[in-house]
């Protein structure tokens, strides 16, 4: 799995409501498809996404195969103070991608 992309505002003040956009490359294999030989292709998706800021969970998404490949998510957060985001994507089978991004709080 390749490195996810995260978009935050360049700078934010305490109390601002900011948009967080994330995108991760993933096939999001539904488990519904078959190979040319008729064999089922097993499900393999990102089933969860967790966003923490300064150690506190601020947003969570539980994803099912209805979410498109390369899952994109946008959500909001009211800036409580300076801190760092920790984003976690969880794949079927338990593999995780973790990315930390500092928010520039002025």
């Amino acid at each position, binding site marked *: 799995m390749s490195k996810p992309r995260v978009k935050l505002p360049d700078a934010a003040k305490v109390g601002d409501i900011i948009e967080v956009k994330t995108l991760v490359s993933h096939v999001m294999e539904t488990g*519904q498809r078959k190979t040319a030989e008729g064999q089922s292709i097993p499900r393999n998706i990102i089933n969860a996404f967790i966003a923490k800021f300064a150690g506190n969970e601020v*947003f969570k*998404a539980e994803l099912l195969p*209805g*979410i*498109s490949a390369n899952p994109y998510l*946008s*959500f*909001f957060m009211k800036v409580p103070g300076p801190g760092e985001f920790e984003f976690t994507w969880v794949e079927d089978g338990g593999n995780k991608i973790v990315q930390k991004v500092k928010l520039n709080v002025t």
Partner: protein
Amino acid sequence: MLSRRQFSLGAAAAVSLPLHALAQEQPQPWEQAVKSILGEAKPTEAKLTLDMPEIAENGNTVPFSVRIDSPMTEKDHVRAIHIISTGNPQPGVATFRLTPQSGRAMVSSRMRLARTQDVIAIAELSDSKFLISKRAVKVTIGGCGG
């Protein structure tokens, strides 16, 4: 427990179920998914906007955005947003968990639509009440592979 008929009528009032669903013996998988979220609660059609294109040329990636008019305070906030498809092989699409720290109750992503269908969004509020909305989307080329 509500009987099947009572539930259907309740859900019909809320999301305008197609009439054929009332005539069927077994609830559709998406109806069961809606019931598993709502339990006995009656959702309100207000304050929740589900934005989706009217026509999706490619069902593999259909943008959607859910917005709820909520102050997002400790006392009054959106706890969860559920997205249900009525025409995909699996009705559940995603559940988003929010907190007062979210500041704004708005989430966007992209979903698969196997065919033309209604998509339902349900918001669960901090006072355990529910909001519901649905959108009809025409799909030119279905997603979900196969």
